[in-house]
């Protein structure tokens, strides 16, 4: 494996993804990510100088909606997706800036 993920990187990626990994899982993740980067290196062998980056696999553009209200009050149904609700709102852990 050409790409070695160091401990600092796996720690950082874990913070970004809000994941807490055990030591074992960290080792596994390091291996997985290393081989993913190896695959990217392989792709990098291709000359893509004249190729536009692709953002979508279908040759489709301009899919729009008209600006017309189509949804009514569906809050009862929406709140069924909340682990907990209070006063018609989603309850989340206390979050203060």
């Amino acid at each position, binding site marked *: 494996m050409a790409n070695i993920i160091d401990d600092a990187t796996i720690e950082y990626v874990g913070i970004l993804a809000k994941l807490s990994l055990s030591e074992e899982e960290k080792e596994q993740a390091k291996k997985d990510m290393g081989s993913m980067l190896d695959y990217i290196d392989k792709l990098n062998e291709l000359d893509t100088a004249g190729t536009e980056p692709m953002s979508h696999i279908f040759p489709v553009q301009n899919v729009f909606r008209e600006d017309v209200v189509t949804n009514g009050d569906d809050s009862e149904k*929406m709140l069924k997706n909340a682990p907990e609700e209070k006063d018609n709102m989603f309850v989340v852990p206390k979050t203060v800036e």
Partner: protein
Amino acid sequence: MGKQYETVIGLEVHIELATKTKIFCGCSTAFGGAPNTHTCPVCTGMPGSLPVLNKQVVEYAVGVGLATNCSITQYCKFDRKNYFYPDNPQNYQISQLYLPVCHDGYVEIETEGGVRKVGIHEIHMEEDAGKLIHDDWEDCSLVDYNRSGVPLIEIVSEPDMRSAEEVIAYLEKLRMIVQYLGASDCKLQEGSMRADVNLSVREAGSEKLGTRTEMKNLNSFRAIARAIEGERERQIELLEAGKDVLQETRRWDDAKECSYPMRSKEDAQDYRYFPDPDLVPVYISEEWLEQIKASQPEFRTEKMKRYKEEYDIPDYDIEIITGSKRMADLFEETTALCGQPKKVSNWLMVETLRLLKENGLEPQDIGFSAQHLAALITLVDRKVINSSVAKEVFEVMSREDVDPVKYVEEKGLKTVNDEGALKKTIEEILAANPQSVEDYRNGKEKAIGFLVGQTMKAMKGKADPAGVNALLREALSK
């Protein structure tokens, strides 16, 4: 002598667009609904839901770009900005990083040193987040997703401003352009226009930019001006003490008049943007662009010119009236109805502005319709009511938009044109005020004013003061 410092300021302005629906779903954007009543699987970030772009958002964004001299990115797309925060249910915000819809524009602002250009780096489309409410009783927060997915444009300026005055002139200019376009009401207090200030200081004459901070939570022009002063001082103090300015996001507390860092250093600011695979690219064809160009409204400069040609009103009036789209619209509509531009202008410039100022409101908050103002002007013209009664009616109209014709009828405010009744009242007044009568006859012209006042009072204000004056003089000359 101490060093001279220059302040360098760039702005990120978020504007909520005045669409009826959200950017990626058919939920209403109406302000003030009960929590979560304007939500669906898309704007609450449910797995498997698919966003579909609101066409009007693209048209507003392009409209603002054209009005700010931007180049339009004809092939543009959306990207995901990844971060965790409970007001963002998808754990990413759909925004534009790589190909923003507009770029490289400018607006001109008036400053003490003359007209200056402020560059616009880019304008991009994105979605707003929900609202977090902190529970007072339990150790939790509550989320209302009504605002989640409301369309925003973010206008990123170049670091071209040097003082709080220039920043405010720039914001007022943007607000005017956007309001003229009808793309937003741009109310800072309600959050439909929000400005983040990027500020750094450097020694005067230096070419190199200093380290900047970003300041958030600025919801009035006054707060913006104070935050700029406060941050400038703070950074200069640090530099003078030989310390470094840290690049960070700070939150302005307007009550305490100071700012504090918002996020700790451990919170990574790494958004890992990538193209949103759920949304297809947007291609703005020449034809579509031409259509948007053709439907751009008349902006202020053109309007001022036309007013000068079309209506016989002073430049000063034109300046004030075209200062807000709402005023200009009301002026044109009312004038079309009653055909009296100067009278309409007077009502708008004097009484309307006075009432707005007294109530701390803005022109968008004007409560009466053009129809009713035109009707009121006609009532005065036809001498159905006198001007002081008209002012009273106008105050009521401003609050409740009553129909002045009905209101005058119901409250019995019509000027009494019954000469018999008026003459009788005058006789009574003259009999009751022999001293004034004598004074007048002895050449004291002022005494007539007192007698007119007494008569108007007895008539409960419902008489034509000029008519009363004439009848009084006639009675006194006998």
